[in-house]
C-alpha cells in the first residue's frame, strides 16, 4: 500500500482508539461520577463561586435554553463591538483596521455559532486582541455550548420520567475544564514544538535568498489552531487556514489536527450510550455515522487521487493525484481525507483549497454538509442526528401501524412537528439562499457593493454556481469552509450568510432539546414485545434510508446544476 494511503488508514484507526475511551470518560464526567480529573474540582468551584452559580439548581429544558441563549446573545453583542473598534484598541501590533459593520455582523455570528466562515483574512483583517479575546474565546465557548446542549439530551433519556435535566452552567464549565482546555493544551504544545508560532511578536521582515523583501505575519497561532480543531470550529489564524505552513508545519501536525477535530464528535456518540446505559443503541448510531462517512470518503479520495483529467490530457503524469490548491508535505490523499472529515464534522478548516478539488469531490463535500450529522459538530452533530432518528421512528411507526415510541416515550404530534420544521429548515435555507444569490448575480450584477455581484465568482459556468451553493450550504451547516474563490466580503453575502448561520445554529439546538425535554416528561412505557427496537440493524438501515431519501429529494437538483454538470462536461 502506498505511504499516503497508509497514512490516512493509520489516522482513522488512531482516532477510534482515542475516541472510544474518551467517550466513556465523558459519560462519567457529565454524570458526576468519579474520574481521574477530579483534582480540577477546586478550579470549577472557584469559577462557580466567582460567577454566582449554584450548580445544585436543577433546570428543565426551557431553563436550559434560556441560559444557553442568554450567554450566546451576550457574546454576540460583546464581540460585535470589539470587531468594529479593534483598530483603536490595544494589542494591534500590525495596525490592522476596524471591521465594517456588515463584516463584523457576519464574523461575530459566525464565531458564536461555531461556524467560522471567514470573510476577512487573518493576516490583515483582525488584531491580536480580536484573535484571542473574541475569536479564540468563542472557539472554546461555542464548542462547550454545543456539548452542553447534547448533554441535556443525554440527561433526558437517562431516567424514566423527569423534568430535572441538570444544570446548564455545570455542563458548560465542565466541558471546558475537563475536556476542551486540557486537550487544547496538549495539541497546542505539539504544534508549537513542530514550528507553529505561539508568541506575541508582530510582523517580521527579511531579505530572501534572491534579494526580495518579504513580510511575514506571525502571532499566537498555535493556541488558536488547537481549539479550532478540537472544538470543530475551523477558523484559521492565517488566511490559508491549515494549508499555511505555520498552521500545519508537517505531516505529523496534519495528523494531530485531523485527529483532534474528529475526537469529540465521535466521543459524544459513545458517551451517549454509556450515559443512558444503552451502549448497543449508541453503537447503532456510531455504525450509521461511520458507514455514511466512509461512503463519502472513499469516492472523494478516489477522485482526488485520479488527478485532474484536463491536466492529464496535456500529458502530465499526476502520479500522486490532483495538486492544485494542495501542499506537497501533506499530499492529495490526506488532503482529500481531510476535506471530507472537515465537512462531515462541521469543522470547516481546510488543508487544501476546496474550490480547486475535482467536481465530484466537491459534490461529496457539499453532501457531507447537507447531511451534517455523520458525526457532525461538537455536540450538535448528535442533536442533528437525533432529529433523523425521530423521523425514522415516526415513519417506522406508520409502517407497522403503531404509535411511535422512542426510548420508552411516546412520540406524538408536537414532537413530530418540531422535527419536521427542523428537517425542512436546511433545504429551505440552502435552496432559497442559493436562489437569491444566483438572482442577484444575474439581475443586480452592477450593484454598488464592495464586491460587485458580476465579479464575485472566481470561476465561470457550473463551477461558479457551485461556489455560491457551497457558501450557503456551509453557512447553514455551521461548517465555515468555502469555495474560497467567491468574493464574499460584501454586504449581500455578509448579511445573507450571517442570517443563515444564526438560524442554522440555534433552531437545530432548540428543536432537539425541546423534543428531548418533552419526551422525558412523559410517562415511561416499559419495553414489551410490541416495542419498536431502536438498537437493531433493521432500525439502523431505516435511519440510513431516511437520511438518504430526505437529502436526495432536497438537494439532487442543486447538485445536478453544479458539480454533476461540471463533471459531465469535463469527461465528455
Amino acid at each position, binding site marked *: 500500500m502506498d*505511504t499516503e494511503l*497508509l*497514512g490516512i488508514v493509520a489516522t482513522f484507526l488512531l482516532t477510534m482508539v482515542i475516541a472510544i475511551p474518551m467517550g466513556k470518560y465523558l459519560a462519567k464526567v457529565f454524570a458526576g461520577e468519579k474520574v481521574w480529573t477530579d483534582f480540577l474540582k477546586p478550579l470549577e468551584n472557584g469559577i462557580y463561586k466567582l*460567577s*454566582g452559580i449554584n450548580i445544585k439548581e436543577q433546570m428543565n429544558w426551557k431553563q436550559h435554553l434560556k*441560559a444557553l441563549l442568554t*450567554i450566546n446573545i451576550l457574546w454576540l453583542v460583546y464581540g460585535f463591538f470589539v470587531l468594529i473598534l479593534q483598530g483603536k484598541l490595544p494589542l494591534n501590533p500590525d495596525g490592522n483596521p476596524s471591521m465594517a459593520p456588515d463584516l463584523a455582523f457576519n464574523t461575530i455570528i459566525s464565531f458564536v455559532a461555531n461556524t467560522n466562515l471567514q470573510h476577512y*483574512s487573518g*493576516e*490583515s483583517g483582525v488584531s491580536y486582541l480580536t484573535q*484571542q479575546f473574541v475569536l479564540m474565546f468563542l472557539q472554546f465557548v461555542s464548542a462547550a455550548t454545543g456539548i452542553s446542549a447534547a448533554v441535556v439530551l443525554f440527561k433526558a433519556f437517562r431516567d424514566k420520567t423527569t423534568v430535572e435535566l441538570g444544570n446548564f*452552567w455545570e455542563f458548560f464549565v465542565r466541558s471546558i475544564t475537563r475536556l476542551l*482546555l486540557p486537550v487544547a493544551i496538549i495539541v497546542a504544545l505539539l504544534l*508549537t*514544538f513542530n514550528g507553529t*508560532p*505561539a*508568541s506575541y511578536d508582530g510582523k*517580521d521582515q527579511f531579505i530572501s*535568498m*534572491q534579494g*526580495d523583501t*518579504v513580510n511575514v505575519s*506571525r502571532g*499566537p497561532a498555535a*493556541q488558536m489552531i488547537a481549539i479550532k480543531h478540537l472544538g470543530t470550529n475551523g477558523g484559521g489564524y492565517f*488566511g*490559508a487556514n491549515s*494549508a499555511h*505552513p505555520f498552521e500545519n*508545519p508537517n*505531516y*505529523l501536525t496534519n495528523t494531530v489536527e485531523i485527529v483532534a477535530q474528529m475526537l469529540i464528535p465521535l466521543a459524544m456518540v459513545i458517551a451517549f450510550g454509556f450515559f443512558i446505559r444503552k451502549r448497543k443503541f449508541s453503537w447503532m448510531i456510531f455504525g450509521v455515522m461511520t458507514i455514511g462517512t466512509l461512503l463519502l470518503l472513499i469516492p472523494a479520495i478516489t477522485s482526488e487521487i485520479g488527478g*485532474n483529467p484536463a*491536466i492529464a490530457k*496535456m500529458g*502530465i*503524469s*499526476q502520479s*500522486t493525484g*490532483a*495538486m*492544485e*490548491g494542495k*501542499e*506537497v*508535505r*501533506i499530499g492529495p490523499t490526506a488532503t482529500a481525507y481531510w476535506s471530507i472529515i472537515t465537512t462531515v464534522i462541521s469543522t470547516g478548516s481546510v*488543508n487544501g483549497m476546496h*474550490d*480547486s*478539488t475535482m*467536481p465530484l469531490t466537491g459534490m461529496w463535500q457539499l453532501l457531507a454538509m447537507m447531511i451534517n450529522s455523520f458525526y457532525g459538530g461538537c455536540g450538535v452533530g448528535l442533536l442533528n442526528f437525533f432529529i433523523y432518528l425521530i423521523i425514522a421512528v415516526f415513519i417506522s411507526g406508520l409502517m407497522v401501524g403503531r404509535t411511535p415510541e422512542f426510548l420508552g416515550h411516546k412520540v406524538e404530534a408536537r414532537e413530530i412537528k418540531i422535527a419536521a420544521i427542523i428537517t425542512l429548515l436546511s433545504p429551505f435555507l440552502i435552496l432559497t439562499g442559493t436562489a437569491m444569490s444566483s438572482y442577484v448575480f444575474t439581475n443586480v450584477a452592477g450593484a454598488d457593493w464592495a464586491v460587485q455581484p458580476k465579479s464575485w465568482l472566481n*470561476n*465561470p*459556468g457550473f463551477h*461558479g454556481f457551485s461556489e455560491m451553493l457551497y457558501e450557503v450550504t456551509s453557512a447553514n451547516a455551521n461548517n465555515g469552509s468555502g469555495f*474560497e*474563490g467567491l468574493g464574499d466580503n460584501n454586504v449581500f453575502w455578509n448579511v445573507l450568510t450571517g442570517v443563515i448561520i444564526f438560524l442554522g445554529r440555534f433552531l437545530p439546538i432548540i428543536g432537539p432539546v425541546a423534543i428531548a425535554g418533552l419526551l422525558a416528561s412523559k410517562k415511561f412505557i416499559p419495553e414489551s414485545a410490541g416495542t419498536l427496537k431502536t438498537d437493531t440493524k433493521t432500525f439502523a438501515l431505516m435511519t440510513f434510508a431516511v437520511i438518504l431519501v430526505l437529502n436526495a429529494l432536497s438537494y439532487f437538483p442543486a447538485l445536478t446544476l453544479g458539480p454533476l454538470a461540471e463533471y459531465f462536461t*469535463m469527461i465528455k
Partner: protein
Amino acid sequence: MKKYITQSIRLTLVLMVLLCILYPLSIALAGKMSSGNGGGEKITRNGKVIGYALLGQSFTKPEYFWGRPSSVDYNAAGSAGSNKGPSNEDYLKLVSDRIDTLLKYNPGIKKLDIPADMVTASGSGLDPNISEQGAIIQIKRIATIRKIDVRKVAELVVKNTNKPILGLFGPSSVNVLKLNLALDELN
C-alpha cells in the same frame, strides 16, 4: 431571566481570564523553548536572516531550484491559494504555459517527467516543498549553469529529501530553501 444575565456576564469574565490570558500565555512561554522561540524557526546565512524554515520563498533564477507556482507570489503576509476550478479554461491555459516554461528551461526533460506539483499552485501560496521528482527534473539545468557535476547535484537532492514518517506514513518532499542553501555552499 435577570439572574441568567448577571451569571452570563460574570462567567464570561472569569473564563476570559482562564482562556484568553492564562492559556495562551502559558503556551507562548513554553514556545520559548521551541526551535524558533515560538516565533517561527528562522534560517540565517552569514548572520543574516534569509528566510523561515517553514515558509517557501520565490526562486526564479535559473541557477536555483524553483519552488511551486504561487498565486500570491510567496507573500508571507497574505497567504492564499488560486481557488481555480478544475475545468476553468483560463486556469488550464496557465498550467499549459507553465509546462512550456519548464520544458524550455530544462532541456532533455519530457512532459511525462513533469510532476503535477510543479505546474499547479499550492493551497497556501507558501508551500516550502516540491516533490522529489520536481527536483530531479531541474538537476541537469542547474548542473549546466553552475558548471558542477550532475551527480553532485543529484546527491544533494537525495540528501535533502524528507522521507515519509518512519518510512510508512505520508508523502516524501524536498525543502527548496534548504536545498538551495546547500547548493550555494557547494560552490
